[in-house]
C-alpha cells in the first residue's frame, strides 16, 4: 500500500526526540571537554520542542495509525506531556552531579533521550508488539544508565541485577503475549479485545496469558513479589540514573498496564482484578513496613516506590473510568514527587560525596532553608498530607476502591499509608530539628537547578490546592472511550 506522509504527524514528538538524540550523538564528537554543556542545552531544546509538538498534534478524536500499531488519544497526549516534563526536570537536576564527576558526556544525554523515546512509544502503542519494543528501548537505555559510572563496582553490580531481572520480566511478558496471540490470533489491542469478548470468559489460555502479563507489569512497576531488584538498584546505581528510572518510567509502566489490561483485555477484568488486589496489598504492606528500617535514603525511597506502586494498582483494579483516571493522576504525581526527592539528593551531593544516608539531610534548613522547604513539600506529598497533591492522589484512588465496595481494601491502604507517614515525617524531623554535620559546606547550586526545584516543589502544593486542572485532563482522557 502507498505510504502516506500524514501518518508521520502523530509521531512528530517521537521524531523530534530521535533527531535530538542523533544530533547530540554527532555534535558530541566535535565538542571539547569544556564545551560539553552544549549537549545539555540541545537536549533541553529537543524536549521543549517535543512538548510543543505533543500539544500541537494532540487533542481531538482517538485515531489509529500505521495499520493499528499506533494510537493517538487523550491518554497518549497527557502521558507524553507528563513524561517529557519530568524528563526535563531530571536532566536539569543531573547536570551538576555529572559535571563534578567528569561524566558530563554526550552518551548520558543520548541514552536518556532514547529512554524517553521508548516511553513515548509505549504510551502511544496500540499493539502488543509496539508496546514490547517501546519497553525494550526504554529498558535497554536504563540498563546502560545504571552502569554509567564505569569505575563503580556497586553500579556495575546493580546494572547486572537490573539487566538479568529486567530480561526475565520482559521474557515473561513476551510469553504472556504469545499466549494471548495464540488464543485470539492478533497482537493488535482492538481485535484482541473483540476476540476476547466474542469467545466469552471461560478461556483458560487467556487467563494463563494474563498471569504472565501481570507478572511482567509487576516487574516493571517493582510491585511485591517482583520487587527484589528495586532496592538494590536504587542503592547501587548513580543517583542521576535512579532519578531517571524512578520517575518517568512509572508513568510508562502505568501506560503499559492500561494498554494491555484495560484496552486489550477489558472483558477479563474479573480475572486480572484479583491478581492486582494481591499485588496491591503486598506492595503497600511490604513497601511501607520495610522502608521504616532503612538508614539509606535511596533504599528508603525504593521501598516507598514499591508502596506507591501498590496505590497505583488500587486505581487500576477498580475497573471504572474514575479509577483509571485516579491511577493516572497518581502515576503522574508520583513521578513528579520522585523527581523532586532525588533532585534534592543530587543537590546535596558534591564532588567526592554522594548524599545517600538519612543523616546527610540533617539540618538542611540551616544550610539552605528554601531547599529544605521544597524537600518538606515533597515528603508531605509522598506521605499524603493535605494540602499537598499526594493527599488528593491517595484520596482519589481510595474513593475508586470504595465505590466498587472493596471497603476492606481501602482500610488496608489507609492503615499502611499511616504507617508510611512515619518515615516520611522522620526525614522532615532530620531537616528541621537536627544540627547539620560540622563539615557540611553551604549548598552551591546553579540558578537553573533552583528554578526547577522551586517549580517542582510548588507544583506539588499548587496541584494539591487546585487539583481540578490535572484531574479533569485525566478524566477527559478516559471519558472519550
Amino acid at each position, binding site marked *: 500500500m502507498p505510504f502516506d506522509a500524514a501518518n508521520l504527524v502523530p509521531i512528530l514528538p517521537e521524531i523530534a526526540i530521535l533527531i535530538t538524540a542523533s544530533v547530540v550523538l554527532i555534535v558530541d564528537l566535535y565538542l571539547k571537554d569544556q564545551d560539553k554543556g552544549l549537549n545539555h542545552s540541545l537536549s533541553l531544546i529537543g524536549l521543549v520542542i517535543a512538548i510543543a509538538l505533543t500539544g500541537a498534534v494532540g487533542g481531538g478524536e482517538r485515531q489509529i495509525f500505521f495499520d493499528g*500499531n499506533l494510537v493517538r488519544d487523550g491518554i497518549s497526549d497527557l502521558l507524553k506531556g507528563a513524561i517529557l516534563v519530568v524528563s526535563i526536570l531530571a536532566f536539569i537536576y543531573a547536570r551538576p552531579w555529572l559535571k563534578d564527576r567528569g561524566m558530563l558526556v554526550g552518551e548520558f544525554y543520548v541514552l536518556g533521550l532514547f529512554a524517553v523515546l521508548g516511553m513515548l512509544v509505549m504510551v502511544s502503542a496500540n499493539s502488543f508488539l509496539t508496546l514490547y519494543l517501546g519497553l525494550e528501548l526504554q529498558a535497554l537505555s536504563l540498563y546502560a544508565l545504571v552502569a554509567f559510572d564505569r569505575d563503580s563496582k556497586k553500579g556495575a553490580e546493580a546494572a547486572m541485577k537490573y539487566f538479568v531481572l529486567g530480561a526475565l520480566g520482559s521474557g515473561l511478558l513476551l510469553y504472556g503475549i504469545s499466549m494471548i496471540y495464540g488464543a485470539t490470533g492478533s497482537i493488535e489491542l482492538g481485535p484482541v479485545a473483540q476476540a476476547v469478548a466474542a469467545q466469552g470468559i471461560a478461556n483458560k489460555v487467556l487467563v494463563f496469558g494474563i498471569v504472565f502479563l501481570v507478572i511482567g507489569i509487576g516487574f516493571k512497576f517493582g510491585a511485591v513479589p517482583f520487587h527484589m531488584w528495586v532496592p538494590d538498584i536504587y542503592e547501587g546505581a548513580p543517583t542521576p540514573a535512579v532519578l531517571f528510572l524512578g520517575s518517568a518510567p512509572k508513568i510508562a509502566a502505568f501506560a503499559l498496564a492500561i494498554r494491555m489490561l484495560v484496552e486489550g483485555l477489558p472483558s477479563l477484568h474479573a480475572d486480572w482484578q484479583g491478581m492486582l488486589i494481591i499485588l496491591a496489598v503486598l506492595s503497600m504492606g511490604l513497601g511501607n513496613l520495610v522502608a521504616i528500617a532503612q538508614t539509606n535514603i535511596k533504599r528508603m525511597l525504593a521501598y516507598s516506590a514499591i508502596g506507591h506502586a501498590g496505590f497505583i494498582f488500587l486505581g487500576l483494579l477498580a475497573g471504572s473510568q474514575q479509577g483509571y483516571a485516579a491511577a493516572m493522576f497518581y502515576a503522574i504525581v508520583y513521578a513528579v514527587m520522585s523527581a523532586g526527592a532525588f533532585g534534592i539528593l543530587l543537590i546535596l551531593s558534591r564532588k567526592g560525596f554522594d548524599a545517600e544516608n538519612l543523616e546527610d539531610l540533617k539540618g538542611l534548613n540551616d544550610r539552605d532553608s528554601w531547599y529544605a522547604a521544597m524537600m518538606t513539600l515533597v515528603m508531605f506529598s509522598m506521605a499524603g498530607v493535605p494540602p499537598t497533591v499526594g493527599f488528593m492522589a491517595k484520596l482519589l484512588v481510595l474513593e475508586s476502591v470504595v465505590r466498587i465496595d472493596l471497603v476492606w481494601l481501602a482500610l488496608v491502604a489507609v492503615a499502611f499509608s499511616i504507617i508510611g507517614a512515619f518515615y516520611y515525617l522522620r526525614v522532615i524531623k532530620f531537616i528541621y530539628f537536627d544540627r547539620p554535620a560540622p563539615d557540611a559546606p553551604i549548598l552551591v547550586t546553579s540558578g537553573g537547578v533552583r528554578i526547577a526545584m522551586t517549580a517542582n516543589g510548588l507544583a506539588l502544593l499548587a496541584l494539591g490546592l487546585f487539583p481540578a486542572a490535572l484531574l479533569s485532563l485525566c478524566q477527559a482522557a478516559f471519558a472519550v472511550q
Partner: protein
Amino acid sequence: MGFEKFLFYLFALITLWAAGMVVSRRNPVHAVLFLVLAFVSSAALWILMEAEFLGIVLILVYVGAVMVLFLFVVMMLDVDIAALRAGFIDYLPLGLLIAGIMAIEIFLIVGPANFGLHAFPAPAPAGTDLNNTRELGLLLYTVYVYPVEIASVILLVAIIAAIRLTLRRRPDNKYVDPARQVRVKKGPDRIRLVKMASETPVPVVAPALEKESDE
C-alpha cells in the same frame, strides 16, 4: 504426513536434550556448542513449519555470527565455572520441584486440550511458488514499518551502550595513528635537514667541573 511427524519429534527431542545439556555441562565451551546444536535443530523445526527464511536466518545469524563470537568470548574470558556452580546441587531439588509444577501447568494449558488439531487444524501446505522471504519483506515494510523502525533504534542504543561501557581512552598508550602516518608528505615531513656550524672539539677539563656545568 508420517515422515514429517517423525522428523518433528526427532528435532524436538534433540532441541530439548541440547537445551538440557547447555545448563548442565561443566565445561562452558561444551555448553556453547550444545547451544549451537539447539539452534540448528530449532531452525529445522522452523523449516518444517514452512518458515524457511526464519530457519535460514537463525543459522546464518545466530549460529554463524553470534554463537561464534560467543565462543570466542567464552574461550578468552576464563570463566570460573566452579564459583558459578556453587549451590547448584543445593538448589536443585527446589528448582526441579518448581520447574516440574510449571511444566505440568504449561502442558495442561498449551497441550492438546487447547491447542490441539481440532482447535487449530493444520493449514494446507503452501505451493512451491510462494516466496517466504518476499512475503515477509512485504509485510515488514508495510504493516510493520513502525515496529521495524523502533527495532532499529533499539540496535542503535545497544551499540551506544556497549561502546560507552567498554571504550576507554588511556592518555599514556603509545598507539600509532594510521591516519597521521598516511598524511606524511614526502618532502620536509620525513627528514629535516638542519644547517649548523661544525663542532670543534672542546678540550677536556676536570670531570667534576664538567658535571657541575651540565647541571
